[in-house]
């Protein structure tokens, strides 16, 4: 029970990987990539958690009280916003592929040569 958050993170990673490997649509592939990314967020935050700890924000809370780790939260929150633009780039590539090959299926694209 004390390892359940880590197991959930591993499960999300593998489920996303399965979605990418068996995908028939490039847009579906981009969303499975975001599922894989969110598994790393869950893992990071689970590592930084302390029992009966509060948020690391000390407005009205005395400074010595038990708080969770702020460094993993800092890494995660910048990553969430930046990954939107990376997924936007992948979708723009998918739109370009669709304009040239008229299909979004990864299996059929390799067959249309020349």
């Amino acid at each position, binding site marked *: 029970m004390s390892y359940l958050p880590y197991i*959930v993170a591993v499960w*999300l990673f593998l489920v996303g990987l399965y979605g990418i490997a068996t995908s028939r649509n490039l847009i579906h592939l981009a969303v499975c990539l975001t599922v894989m990314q969110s598994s790393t967020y869950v893992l990071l935050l689970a590592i930084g958690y302390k029992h009966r700890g509060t948020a690391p924000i000390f407005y009205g809370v005395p400074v010595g009280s038990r708080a969770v780790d702020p460094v993993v939260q800092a890494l995660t929150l910048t990553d969430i916003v930046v990954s939107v633009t990376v997924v936007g780039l992948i979708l723009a590539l998918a739109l370009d592929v669709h304009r040239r090959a008229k299909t979004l299926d990864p299996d059929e694209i390799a067959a249309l040569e020349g």
Partner: protein
Amino acid sequence: MIPLQLAALLMVALAGTTVVLVRDPLRMTILNAVYALTLTILFLVFQSPDVALSMLVVGGIAYPVVLLAAIARVRSGSEHE
């Protein structure tokens, strides 16, 4: 681990699995927004309000816009040509 965290973790695992298993892009966009909401609740229960704010804003505004615009472009593009 308090029961609220257990429930949030199980909801996240369930929502993530359904996002991958649904193949139609339009339905998957709505499910992705629901998945972002379950992740927000999980981050809040893990005592990280900054990360929860970030996920809420991104999963509610940025991802649906970008995904829906791409899907609409693909559909209108395949009708023209």
